[in-house]
Structure formats: structure tokens, C-alpha cells
């Protein structure tokens, strides 16, 4: 399995797969296949896929460790950037089709509606993660600071979930919200459990950590 993931065609294939939901939505938009309220459908579907890609990204590390598939790490950046891609589609669709790019109205919405404020904050926090996703940024920041910044994805996942929850609370319709909450709880919970289980200092400090073992006199 690890070998398959290392195949030169693997990344392009995953790229195409990640683009499929967008392609389907785009095609649906062009052919009036998004139902009676296409704008609402598009905004909601883009939001759904953002949340799904956040879950997929958060699943990379647990899967890599549990299944010992180190090659999965190669895909994490692409998957994360696709989460950003779908959140941009979500935000653009809302700004354009719901609000007609009236920035004063959009600002008012962000200020007055808690669920939009939370969603917008998640977007704002995800932006530096997208902006520092390429190799030169990692080198410039240094591994420790880069990792600390990218741990923000945990908070972003929580904010995204809250955004979805608050939106659905108006219709008392929580079934889907609970599914995503359960998935994210497991993915984050695994990290807590993994950290506690290993009780290892963070990898970047491993080189300087005191080694256990008999003292050689």
C-alpha cells in the first residue's frame, strides 16, 4: 500500500479526485442541475466539502501512524490546500450569490450574525496556513514554528463545526452536525491519546532530550 502511494501517478490522481466535487458542482451550475435554489445549494455544498476535507486532512496523521503508511504524509499539503480551496468557493459563493458583493452588507452580516463571524474567523485563521504551505515557507519559519502555526487546524476544525452547528440550530436539524462532530472528536481525540501514550517530547526537541539508560562511568 505504501508503495502504491509512492507511485508517481498517485499525487495527480488524488488531485483529480479532490477536484471532482468542484467539477460536479460547476457542471451542475452550468446545466441548471442544482435544484430550485442553486445559490443556496452551491454555498451549502462548498461548505460541506470544506468540512469534509478538514476531516480528511486530520485523518492523515492517525492513518499514517496506525497503518504505518508513511507515504500518506506526501498528500497532507495537497489535501489541506483543497480544504482552503473549498472554503474559498464557499466564501465566494456567499459573497457573490447571496450578497452580490455588497461589502458593506457582508461586513454587517459578519458583525451581526455569530455563526457568520465564527465561519469567517475560521477562514481568516486558515489563510496563513495556506499561505505557508510551500517548502520555502517551512524553511523560512523553521519546523518548530511552522508546526505550531499549523496546529491551528485543530481550532479551525472546531470553529467550522460551530459555524455549521449554529447555522443548523435555526432549523433544529443536527443529525449531520453530530456526524462531523463525532468524526472530528475521534481524530482530535486520537492525537491526545497518542501524545499521552508516547509521553515523548516533541520530535524537534528529541535531539536535545536527555537519554535514558545506564550512566556509563
Amino acid at each position: 500500500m505504501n508503495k502504491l502511494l509512492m507511485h508517481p501517478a498517485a499525487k495527480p490522481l488524488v488531485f483529480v479526485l479532490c477536484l471532482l466535487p468542484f467539477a460536479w458542482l460547476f457542471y451542475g451550475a452550468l446545466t441548471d442541475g442544482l435544484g430550485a435554489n442553486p445559490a443556496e445549494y452551491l454555498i451549502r455544498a462548498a461548505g460541506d466539502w470544506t468540512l469534509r476535507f478538514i476531516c480528511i486532512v486530520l485523518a492523515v496523521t492517525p492513518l499514517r501512524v496506525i497503518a504505518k503508511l508513511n507515504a500518506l504524509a506526501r498528500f497532507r499539503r495537497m489535501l489541506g490546500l483543497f480544504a482552503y480551496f473549498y472554503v474559498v468557493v464557499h466564501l465566494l459563493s456567499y459573497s457573490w450569490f447571496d450578497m452580490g458583493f455588497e461589502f458593506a452588507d457582508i461586513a454587517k452580516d459578519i458583525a451581526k450574525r455569530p455563526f457568520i463571524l465564527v465561519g469567517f474567523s475560521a477562514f481568516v485563521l486558515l489563510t496563513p496556513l495556506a499561505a505557508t504551505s510551500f517548502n520555502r515557507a517551512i524553511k523560512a519559519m523553521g519546523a518548530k514554528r511552522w508546526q505550531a502555526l499549523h496546529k491551528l487546524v485543530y481550532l479551525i476544525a472546531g470553529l467550522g463545526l460551530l459555524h455549521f452547528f449554529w447555522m443548523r440550530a435555526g432549523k433544529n436539524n443536527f443529525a449531520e452536525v453530530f456526524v462531523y462532530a463525532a468524526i472530528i472528536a475521534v481524530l482530535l481525540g486520537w492525537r491526545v491519546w497518542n501524545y499521552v501514550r508516547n509521553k515523548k517530547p516533541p520530535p524537534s526537541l528529541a535531539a536535545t532530550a536527555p537519554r535514558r539508560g545506564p550512566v556509563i562511568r
Partner: protein
Amino acid sequence: MLIHSRDDGFLHPRSSEITPKGVYEGRRDMLRWLAGGAAGAAMASWAARDALAQGAAPGKLAPLAGAKSAVPGAQTMEKLTDYKDATSYNNFYEFGTDKGDPVKNAGSLKTRPWTVEVEGLVKKPGKYGIEDLVKLSAQEERIYRLRCVEGWSMVIPWIGYSLSELIKKVEPQGNAKFVEFLTLADPKTMPFVGSRVLDWPYAEGLRMDEAMHPLTLLTFGMYGEVLPNQNGAPVRIVVPWKYGFKSAKSIVKIRFVEKEPGTAWNKAAANEYGFYSNVNPNVDHPRWSQATERRIGDGGGLFAKRAKTQMFNGYEAQVGQLYAGMDLKKNY
């Protein structure tokens, strides 16, 4: 010159002109659907609309004719929503919470036999079979705007008669201040009754003067046919100046009460859905603004601009006086 003709004026029919017996026996059916067609054609020509081009009903349900209504405000001139959209984009949580669920799942609803029970503070309570209820007063076609609290709207040609016709017949007592409507809640035929989204049965209510208003429609059909299941068959109310959730569907009970009844969405989220729920661009929903709305099937598709929401959904001239002096921000 007097030339006598042998023609006595009687036109002898040829045998080919004699009406076949089957056709003669079906003459009443033919009249019935001619009447429906004629009413439809009259409506269409009056409003200069081509019913077929409007996305009319496909003719799968029984026809229901309604005469042109003379009630002020009852006939908007706006473009009708396509039948396809009106019957496949619905909120009817008894059949699921997605917009496409009712059309998929409402097939299990049994609309015959159907009884509407009238009870409470009335001098003449009783049980009305749906066939009798349909005939209680003359059916009218009303072309109303329907505005959902979610921010979308449609224009639908309903068929029914003013609820006041029924109310007058049952003679409410002096202390009957409100009318409560209860929807069927049968878990055997409605798969999502029992889900925790709402309290069941779905309950709605109107103040007596709102219920007596001529625009409040006891509704039996749409687009020249009986109601499809997903739109609240076989009988519902339509209150066009309020958010759509006030227009209860598939009604089994009409109760006349003294105190303001609890309503489904108010019980689910009291700070978001009030008893009155009049369409009001100045009173926001806590989660989204009500200043604009999206007209389904607008023609612009994805790029259709949202329209400004009108006070009382454009029925201010007809219903504004019901709320004179009321603080509509408090009584949302």
C-alpha cells in the same frame, strides 16, 4: 314569386352525426374537465399567461377548478413559479428535512379517507369529510406570493375558499380568540414523525381576525389540480402575508380556543419564530437578515439578484390594519 320548397326546415341528420352512446354517457365527465380547462384558459388569458409555458401541472392529479377570485389582493400579476419547483422544493419535515425529501417520501401519505375535525369554542363542532369540505363553498383560484422564513419565495396559484366561509358556518363563540390548526402526525405513513426536529403533531395558529381575513385560504388545490402530497394534501391553509411555516399542511383538526396556541416552530426555537411571523424586512431573524429574498425560478438562476422583501409580503394594503399599533419587533 312564391316558390314552395320542399324543405320544411328540418335538418335530417346523417347517421354519422349521431353521438355514440359511450360519448353521450360520458358527457358529464367531459363537461367537468372542460370546466377545469375553461377556468384555466380563462385565467391564463386574463392574466395574459400561457399556462403551458409557465411550467404548468403535468396532469397526473385530479383537476380542481377555481373561479377567478374577486378578493382584493388575491391575484398577483407576477410570473408563476414552475410547477416542478413548487412541488419538489418543500419543507414538510414529517417526510424529511431536506428540500427534496417531501417529493421523494410523501407518496406514503394517505389522503382518503380524510376527516377534518372542527372543535373547541364553537356552536357547531363537527367532523367534515374532505369531499364535503371541498363543496362547502365555491372554489376560487388565488395567485399568492409565498415567502419562506429561510429567504426564498414563490408565486403559486392556489385553489380554495376563504377560511372565513367555514368559520361562519361553525359559529365561533364569543370567547374564541384564536384558531389552532393541527397537521396529521401518523408515524405509519409519515416516516419522520418521531424525529426530534419538531414537536408532533405540527401545530399552527392564527388570531381570530387573521383567520377571518378573506385572504386566509382554506386550500384544496394548486395549478388547477388537487394538492400533491408534498404540498399538504388534501387540505391546508395558506396565509400569504406570513412566513410559509404558518401555512399548515395536511390539516386534520381546526380548534377554536381562548388562549394563543403553541405553534411548532415557536416551541422549537422561541427566539427565532414568533406566533405572528408576519413577513417583515425590518425584523431580522437572529441568524439571517429578512431584508431580501430569492424568488425561486427567477430566470437569472445562480446569478439572480435577491429582491427586496416587502412588508407583509406585499399584502400590507389588505392586512396592515390588523396590526395597527402593534410593536412588530416585539410581536415577531
